[in-house]
């Protein structure tokens, strides 16, 4: 039983309740409808979920209105909160910088001569500075007070201590100038310091928040790919319903140019589908009856009907989003050091600032107090723990996001980090380097003259003769169920040959098949005598399987069948070798077949691991790992799970809709081998960004804190540097988007 609750607008009496209940009960499939006047809500009970538009229509037909309130999604909440935050921040930045500008104008030596008297007035400065201090920096105070309750210090604490000291000193100077004169100190407030620092740090925060929003863009794009509605066929009628109302088993019609709403299997029609947004594969895929389609991909040419198999959180897109979210929540090992340092950082900076104050006060030149105060403020302000905290996660967010857009799904940050150190990569042969389906590669006529004679010389050209031989063989094999036979039939279908009629078909176990075609006895299968045939041997040496064609017991031709290598295999292997990665191939096939494939894709002879039983693959991976090499294993993820798991980085390829593979560190959604290269390049680029970020964040603090301690940086300059520091880290991470992978 299914229950749905919604609000109805416009009800004011008991009869309204009755009218609505009646209208709702009339909807087919509804077993019960209860309308409550006081709450203004209706509850429907039904066998199957009732489509929203039916409910809306039923209620509208009696003159009322259904209020469908969708719960605000987390994404919307984040958006609303961020927009509000940025708006508030923007106002504060503008006002604070504007006010601090006035103070600087009225107090900066040289500049102040151009200012009118009111602008130079210290009380007026005090007034403006108070606004900046308590309104502009309000959030800093609030955050500091609440974190101090937990005995934690952060960035805000540093800003608050630094600016409060400057503000309080300046206020004291304004109200008790005599006291400072008696101490031989200049009657000079430092409101410019407190206000400019707050203004610049707020500006830094504003820019940082804007840039940070860009780091999570990829996942937002993925979520945005989701179709909003689906045209389902229910009770022989096509109706548009919301995507979350689609259930598995629904028949859905998709027209050209429309988005495919959920995952499923085509039951009628055919089309070319652009799957690039999910798989990263740029060529549109041709799909026919029985083929699977992926939700959120784009239908290009034909119109078709398909049956929904996976909906909601089970769709491939939902799983990809979940995987990316999880990866973004994980931590790269490289981040550990930064984590440890940042957890001690702020209290240490406070201690250094106190030392700076004492040092300058005790050993500084005359008016030591001013030097001590300004330099210790500079120390507090220049320190930037944020850059350290942002260095790794922002790059991981951008890196995993770019990966997803290219069909490269990274399980966690650790896999992304390890992938850049790969020195050895092992490819499983069947289905990974090769297409995994036998295909006809060669058709050879052995005795042209005799063949022509058999069929009364109907076929004249060599091309005709070859097609005829294929036609003959395919006609016989059509009735066989052997995979090699299937390859021959597929080839004939590909060449659009019209198959001949076969009589007296017979399957000879362990040998082949035979029958009568066009009045002649035809046999297709193994060699019927022990003679060695030169052409056949040559093909066998290339790792191919040879099928012999006999007419009237005379050998007339050969058909070679092999599992062909993927178009992208050779280029991918070459590029990996260019990256100084040792490429291996592993297979259960015999050595000759394996060597032949290796030669085609450019893998070295000594790197071929042939005749390896499936359960031994894991052992081979471990053997290669023994030399302290970082080893990656590329396989299909289903049969190779143990090998994938035992490698430093397991890369599962083209696993279709089942993307959540536990054993693999990286899952490639498409079957294009160049994605392996892209994944490694992505890892290298991301790590380069992280290292640069961390170097910058550490070097910045290590160099500039001591510089501030010895008094070479003014507090205002320090706040500028601080603001730039964290923005530059986030911006550097965003540059990753431009990386070529």
């Amino acid at each position, binding site marked *: 039983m299914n229950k749905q609750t919604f609000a109805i607008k416009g009800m004011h009496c008991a009869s309204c309740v009755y009218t609505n209940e009646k209208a709702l009960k009339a909807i087919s499939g509804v077993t019960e409808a209860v309308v409550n006047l006081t709450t203004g809500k209706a509850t429907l009970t039904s066998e199957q979920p009732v489509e929203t538009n039916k409910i809306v229509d039923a209620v509208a037909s009696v003159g009322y209105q259904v209020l469908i309130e969708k719960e605000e999604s987390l994404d919307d909440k984040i958006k609303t*909160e961020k927009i509000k935050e940025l708006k508030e921040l923007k106002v504060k930045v503008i006002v604070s910088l504007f006010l601090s500008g006035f103070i600087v104008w009225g107090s900066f030596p040289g500049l102040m001569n151009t200012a009118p008297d009111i602008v130079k007035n210290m009380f007026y400065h005090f007034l403006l500075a108070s606004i900046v201090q308590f309104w502009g920096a309000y*959030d800093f105070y609030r*955050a500091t*007070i609440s974190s101090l309750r*937990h005995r934690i210090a*952060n960035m805000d604490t540093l800003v608050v201590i630094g600016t409060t000291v400057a503000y309080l000193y300046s206020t004291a100077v304004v109200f008790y100038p005599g006291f400072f004169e008696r101490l031989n100190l200049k009657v000079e407030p430092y409101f410019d310091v407190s206000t400019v620092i707050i203004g610049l740090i707020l500006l830094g925060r504003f820019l940082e928040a804007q840039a940070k929003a860009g780091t999570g863009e990829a996942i937002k794009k993925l979520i945005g790919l989701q179709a909003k509605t689906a045209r389902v066929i229910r009770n022989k009628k096509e109706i548009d319903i919301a995507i979350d109302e689609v259930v598995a088993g629904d028949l859905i019609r998709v027209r050209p140019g429309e988005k495919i709403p959920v995952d499923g299997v085509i039951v009628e029609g055919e089309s070319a589908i652009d799957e690039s947004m999910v798989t990263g594969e740029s060529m549109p895929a041709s799909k026919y009856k029985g083929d699977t389609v992926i939700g959120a991909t784009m239908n290009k040419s034909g119109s078709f009907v398909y049956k929904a198999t996976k909906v909601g959180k089970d769709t491939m897109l939902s799983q990809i989003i979940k995987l990316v979210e999880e990866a973004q929540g994980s931590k790269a090992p490289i981040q550990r050091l930064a984590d440890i340092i940042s957890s001690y950082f702020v209290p240490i900076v406070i201690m250094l600032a106190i030392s700076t104050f*004492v040092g300058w006060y005790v050993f500084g030149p005359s008016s030591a107090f001013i030097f001590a105060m300004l330099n210790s403020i500079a120390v507090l302000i220049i320190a930037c723990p*944020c850059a350290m905290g942002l260095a790794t996660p922002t790059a991981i967010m951008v890196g995993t996001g770019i990966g997803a857009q290219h069909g490269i799904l990274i399980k966690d940050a650790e896999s992304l980090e390890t992938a850049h150190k790969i020195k050895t990569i092992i490819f499983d042969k069947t289905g990974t380097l090769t297409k995994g389906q036998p295909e006809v590669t060669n058709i050879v006529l052995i005795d042209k003259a005799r063949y022509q004679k058999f069929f009364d010389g109907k076929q004249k050209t060599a091309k005709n003769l070859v097609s005829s031989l294929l036609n003959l063989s395919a006609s016989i094999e059509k009735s066989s169920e052997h995979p090699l036979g299937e390859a021959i039939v597929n080839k004939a279908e590909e060449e659009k040959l019209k198959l001949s009629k076969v009589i007296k078909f017979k399957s000879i176990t362990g040998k082949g098949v035979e029958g009568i075609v066009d009045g002649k006895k035809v046999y297709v299968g193994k060699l019927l005598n022990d003679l060695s045939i030169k052409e056949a041997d040559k093909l066998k040496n290339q790792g191919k399987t040879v099928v012999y064609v006999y007419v009237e017991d005379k050998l007339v031709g050969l058909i070679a069948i092999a599992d062909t290598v993927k178009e992208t295999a050779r280029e991918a292997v070459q590029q990996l070798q260019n990256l100084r990665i040792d490429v291996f191939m592993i297979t259960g096939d015999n050595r000759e077949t394996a060597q032949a494939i290796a030669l085609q894709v450019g893998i070295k002879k000594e790197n071929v691991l042939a005749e390896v039983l499936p359960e031994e693959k894991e052992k081979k991976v471990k053997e290669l790992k023994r030399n302290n090499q970082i080893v990656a294993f590329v396989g299909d993820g289903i049969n190779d799970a143990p090998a994938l798991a035992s490698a430093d980085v397991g890369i599962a390829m083209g696993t279709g809709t089942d993307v959540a593979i536990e054993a693999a560190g990286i899952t490639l959604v498409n079957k294009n081998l160049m994605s392996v290269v892209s994944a490694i390049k992505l890892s290298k680029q991301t790590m380069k960004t992280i290292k640069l970020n961390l170097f910058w964040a550490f070097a910045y603090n290590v160099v500039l804190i001591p510089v501030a301690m010895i008094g070479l940086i003014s507090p205002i300059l320090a706040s500028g540097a601080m603001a730039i520091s964290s923005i530059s880290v986030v911006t550097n991470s965003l540059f990753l988007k431009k990386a070529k992978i």
Partner: protein
Amino acid sequence: MDKIIVSIFGVISILFTYWFFFMKKVNTVVATDEINILVDGGYKPERIAIPYGKTTKLVFHRKDSSSCLEEVVIADFKVRKFLPLNEKTEIEINPTKKGEFDFSCGMGMFHGKIIVI
């Protein structure tokens, strides 16, 4: 004379800073099925003990508008979640290994610990 006073005051301040931030004692709160964690200038409670092999619901209630605490990261359980302000956000975890696991804000400034027992 004033230099001596400032020096002594400085040393005391440094010691106080050290004691205040690094010597705090944190109590461990044992969670059964569900635990509320207040997010306001840090996490309260900060150390949470949860049972091994059982799903525990961590309910983060963010009351702090500072953007620093807007996300919570529990890296060992692959969670990075935005916590909408003034709302309760539920995160379910089912530990499959024992030990101490850190959780923190998005930038790693505020920390808490999950102890799987």
